């Protein structure tokens, strides 16, 4: 692991007196490798190493008896601070029904996450309304209805022959009349390069003006994460990100890549298939996980 690799690097340099810039660079190469193995984007990793080099050249590392440990501490703290910052929780102040729109690639966990969000809101005494806006995937509407039944949460009766924009508009009116606090729009998975489907999302955004547009991303996504996140963010101006399937062993470098390239906060993480497997995002835990 990284800790052992850095110790090896510094051990063989130990006998040569004080550490030099070249020594630090060699150690940083190991850090960069660890980031790439964790699926952090190539350019994001390079920029991160450049920015952390200045701190790594400081006396904390250079004069430490355990330079490897000191370097890991600096790197981990820097990672955590980049991914953290002020996390705005879900909007609670807007006029109800507060709309939350879930978007992302195919299979990332949007429908399941819609259920999880609804469950969380209900547990806080709110009245959420679930809206199936995926008319393409076979049995997608049924999937969300089943989740709603499991949770005792109402689901708009979308018709698969209808247009997602109409569904969202009608559902919003129904939520308004029904006195719901939140309306959660589950959209179909789509490619960021599918212009027509990306346009569909823009149209829904214009019609509904959601308080939250959350990008749902699979924690195991690789280098392509920045292309996807950037495209969704440029189209929709995301309010946040949800990372799913963190109950696996994916290192989750996407967390750093997405934050670096969009600046948007990661608000929640999915940690299982059950609807209660949902937690707030902890940047320090994520930093340790990425470093392995």
């Amino acid at each position, binding site marked *: 692991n990284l800790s052992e690799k850095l110790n090896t690097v510094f051990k063989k340099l130990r006998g040569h007196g004080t550490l030099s810039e070249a020594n630090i660079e060699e150690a940083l190469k190991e850090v960069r*490798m660890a980031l*790439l*193995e*964790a*699926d952090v*984007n*190539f350019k994001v990793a390079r920029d991160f190493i450049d920015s952390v080099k200045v701190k790594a050249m400081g006396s904390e590392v250079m004069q430490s008896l355990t330079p490897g440990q000191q370097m890991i501490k600096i790197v981990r703290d820097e990672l955590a601070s980049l991914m953290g910052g002020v996390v705005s929780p879900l909007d609670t102040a807007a006029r109800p029904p507060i709309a939350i729109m879930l978007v992302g*690639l*195919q*299979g*990332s*966990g949007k429908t399941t996450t819609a259920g999880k969000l609804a469950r969380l809101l209900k547990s806080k005494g709110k009245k959420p309304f679930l809206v199936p806006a995926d008319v*393409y*995937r*076979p*049995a*997608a509407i*049924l*999937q*969300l209805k*089943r*989740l709603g039944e*499991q949770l005792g949460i109402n689901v708009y009766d979308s018709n698969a022959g209808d247009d997602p924009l109409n569904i969202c508009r009608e559902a919003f009116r129904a939520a308004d009349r029904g006195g719901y606090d939140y309306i959660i729009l589950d959209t179909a998975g789509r*490619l*960021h*390069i599918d212009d027509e489907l990306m346009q569909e999302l823009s149209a829904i955004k214009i019609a509904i003006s959601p308080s939250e547009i959350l990008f749902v991303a*699979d924690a*195991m*996504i*690789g*280098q*392509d*994460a920045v*292309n*996807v996140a950037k495209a969704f963010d440029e189209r929709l101006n995301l309010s946040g990100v949800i990372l799913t*399937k963190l*109950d*696996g*062993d*994916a*290192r989750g*470098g*996407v967390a750093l890549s997405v934050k670096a390239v969009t600046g948007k906060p990661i608000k929640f993480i999915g940690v299982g*298939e059950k609807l209660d497997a949902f937690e707030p995002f902890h940047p320090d835990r994520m930093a340790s996980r990425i470093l392995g």
Partner: protein
Amino acid sequence: VLGRKRIDEDLYDELEEILVTSDLGVQTSYRLIEKVRERLRRGESDDAGLVKAYLKEEILTILKSTGNAIDTGRGKPFVIMVVGVNGVGKTTTIGKLASKYNAEGKSVLLCAGDTFRAAAIEQLEVWGERAGCGIIKHKEGSDPSAVLFDAIKAAKSRGTDILIADTAGRLHTKTNLMEELKKTRRVVEREVSGAPHEILLVLDATTGQNAVSQARLFKEAVEITGIVLTKLDGTAKGGVVVSIVDELKIPVKFIGIGEGVEDLRHFEPSEFVEALF
């Protein structure tokens, strides 16, 4: 001379970036580039044009090292199990395979083995209708091995050519779920000699290095005969299969290039390598 050497280093950096950003992984990219450097040293050449060509050759050699055909005539019913982590495209791929084999004049039966996830059975039913083939299902929550047992019985009595078994998505790190998969596989072995004839691991092309861990653990649990690499219609390159073929010797048999029933292709190594660059 020094000026020329500098250009080569930039070229190698550029190639490292291409390989890593295509998800080949930093270790595999490094190994491949070192092999190319060695070939150039031995050939005493420093022709920049050769570097890329040698690199493509090295990757192609790896990808072609395993056969990738499926001979469905080997058994009747020919049993295909489809496995993989959550959301990668198993159910959709089964719909595409069923349609393909149906069009080839084979009789196909589907087994709704995902008895856990909401509306998983109904989703496969729609694909069965699209592909024009039957489906064996129990109600949600039943034992997946029991459904497959019934499906095998039905396939035998109907004289079905090909039985394709859907399974629930599961993370490879969940030991109890992997045990459930092993149990399902044993049911097939017991009931049909030589089966399961194919166990296809579905991998999402957008997945990074975690795909290697997925392939390794699924192979250890149930033995994988082939990979289906889905969602190649996006911008991800799926380069992680290079490490998987190289280290685990599992061939890539099909690729998914869209959400429609026709969007399945046989894996073509040279097309794949060209798309990387």
